[in-house]
């Protein structure tokens, strides 16, 4: 199959590669760039495990053509901590035990990061609503909801 060139920003770094036009973003991230924190579970944009941020908005990498990210900025779980300092959502997940098996965690954290960038004081209804795009089969969600509330408070305290 013919390939097409792809230029995009991944975790703040400008990247270039040649891709087949039918390749999805999850495969480029995992196999092309070794970013295996992006987990593919349902492969149908239902469960949210593969969620990454494109220009700050959460999308399902399993069902997004890689070429559609041309010229855009992609953030994955690997890029969230900076200079060895965890993002507030990662810290709140650790402190609140917001995960068990961890397979949904990358996507869950990125969805929440997107939520908190646009809503600094989400109420519980909004949090539950926003998390509707991410399935966690392990935790029963309550510890995740609390982690979001803690992260929101932390981020408000440290703008």
């Amino acid at each position, binding site marked *: 199959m013919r390939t097409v060139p792809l230029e995009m920003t991944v975790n703040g770094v400008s990247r270039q590669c040649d891709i087949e036009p039918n390749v999805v973003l999850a495969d480029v991230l995992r196999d092309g760039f070794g970013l295996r924190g992006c987990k593919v579970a349902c492969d149908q944009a239902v469960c949210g495990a593969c969620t990454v941020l494109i220009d700050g908005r959460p999308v399902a990498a399993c069902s997004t053509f890689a070429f559609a990210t041309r010229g855009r900025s992609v953030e994955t779980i690997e890029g969230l901590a900076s200079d060895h300092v965890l993002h507030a959502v990662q810290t709140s997940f650790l402190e609140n*035990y917001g995960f068990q098996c961890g397979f949904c965690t990358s996507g869950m954290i990125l969805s929440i990061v997107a939520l908190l960038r646009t809503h600094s004081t989400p109420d519980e209804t909004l949090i539950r609503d926003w998390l509707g795009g991410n399935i966690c089969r392990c935790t029963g969600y309550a510890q995740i909801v609390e982690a979001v509330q803690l992260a929101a408070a932390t981020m408000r305290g440290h703008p």
Partner: protein
Amino acid sequence: MGDLLSGSQADPSCRENLAKVTGASVYTFDIELPRMLHGKLLRSPLPHAVIRRIDATAALAMPGVVCIVTGEDARGLRDPFYGVGLRDQPVIALDRARYVGDVVAGVVAIDEATAFRAAQAIVVDYEPLQPLMTIDEALAPDAPALFDGKTPGIPIPVGAGCSSVADPANNVLYEFNFGYGDAAACLDASDQIFTDTFEVSRINHFHLEPHVNVAHWVGGRLEMWSCNQDPFLIRADIARIFGIPLHGVRIHTPLIGGGFGGKSYCKMEPLVALMARKAGAPVRLALSMDESLLTLVKHPGRLTLTTGVDREGRLTARRADILLDGGAYSDASALVAVKTAFRIGGGYRWQAIASHARVVRTTTVPSGSFRGFGGTQAAFAGERQIDMIARRLGEDPLDFRNRNMLDVGEPFAPGDRGMDSDLHAGLQDIADRIGHGAQKPGHGIGFAVGVKDAGGTGNHAQALVRVTQDGEVMVSAAVVDVGQSAASALCRIAVEALGLPLSSASYAPIDTDHSPPDNGTHVSCGTLVTGRAIEQAAMEARAQIETFAAERLGCDRSEIVLDGWTVRHNNVTHPLAPMVRAYYGGVGWEFIGRGSFKEPYDPTAPMGARNISWMPCWSAAEVSVDEDTGRIALHKLVVGADPGRALDADVCRGQIEGAAIQALGQALFEELRYQGSDPENASPLTYRVPRAGDLPQVFESFVAEHRLGIGPGGLKGIGEAGMLGIAAAIANAVEAATGASLTALPFTPERVLAALDARPERIQSRTD
């Protein structure tokens, strides 16, 4: 805490958790080997058919395709069947497909897309046979036999008062009877007898990491990375199937992305090994979630309970007739039947029990283990009926339960261990938390106390604890981390015995060449059964350290006090690291302690060994019902369980809540359905599991530490508990709110409306 390099991340739970929140964790899904090829499977579109011919010519001719595996390849294996006790499932369909989704061919190719396209190019000539989609169809007098001849393997061995029989009738895989006392006489002598029938539904585990295995043969020896939670069972199955020694198989078990029973016991592991052997290269087979939905489900079934009560409102006897739909193949069906029947009495005192369970074969997805192993089926029927009886007697459901519930130390059944939780205290706790007696008008409150055994039947585990000259601890066992924080819990047990900080401990990766064996990560046994083995291993390592120090200091071991990584003798502190180096040299030495635990078999116990612990789940629900739409509003859900002693309260909370929300899904909407002979919703898009928006308005959980378990410090398992009481509590609350009696899962609006219409006063008003 925020700094990746800070010391607070140094303990084992922090290390593994840090990897999870940074995307660094490695699952089997992420394993990649040099020259690795990829597999895809072709599955039967028909529920029941003879496979006349498979034409793979076109598929094999496609560029990038390496080989095709079919039943022809499996026929050459030493023993191409697997299953728990009863082994009827072929590694790949031999000559007949028995459900929609049965594996008919496997393709190995250079990448997944090529393998997928090639699988679609395989032409299979089927001769359709009559499907048997339900228990009733399979038991019909003229139903065709799903299998020819006797089922290979042996039925589960059982103990006192039990019988265990394979192939008792056409399309009946297995029959189990458990009882004590004279149930017929007790029921005859009862003041009142109640008979009710309950139906439980088919649900899927929906673990997010799909079933995935990577297999690689080197010099006739198999090396495999597997998401299976039973590495030593898989080693044994593959050795038997391929006719090779146990040490000819090496299984690595990385972190597992969720299991809940769906990744226990043999599944497609032998097939991946077969594909890799034929391809002559490493092969990775990752199922899609659609395929996982067609791999294993929880047993649907029908339970009819006849329960007697005497004049004083005391339970007398219970008779149970349990029919479980085992699906197309045995898997763990016999064991689930045993456990369902055994657990049917719940946490109550009986004069007699007569429990009869059968597993019926149908042309549907195989049923097997699912968090609670028959316990949830038994608890739904049992706790629903207890409430219905209390209501019919005009009694408060709490008073009725309290009068009949087992006290601490009372045996669950003759010959078994005594109750190791205070069931009454837990019931009082949920009553207080839900606000019993103070609910709003129109709301109803329901309770349930699910109880099951835990820790397994005669389970065993071995463990190693290694301590370096610098006081670092490596804990080695075969408990697999499926998200329950096993590594951290087991490390904690070891360092407590050694008196060393948790930050000094690591949990060794699981590898059957090096890890000490166990029965598999099942039945909430890890912290208790393996924990006992680890505690013993740590104490042995400690004795070696003290003996070494005593020899070096020229004193008796009894004069030595181990204090962190120093020893004290005559009030003088001696650091251990230089002492070890001085004797063994710079590379140093490891003190290696071995431990083991085995619950002995006991033919006088019903299960053939005394159960290791008891697992209660106290549940309470507050609901209201929209009588126009049949929709249940769950205002509050309270769930509590007893880990004996909580090694980590947050982890225990997560186990209880996660199980409870899985049970909530099964109670309210979750179900794998068939439309005729086709799966109706076997895809992640159409199979609905609970999301954050499905949480009850108020969701409260509690960890009750009754400290009566036989594990270190009184601990016992907790992983399955939260699943047990939820569905019954919700149905009991619906009846309290509306008078409508729900007896079948899930409680869809249609079922709720039907139950509202079936209320006696509604029927009365229609006939007036």
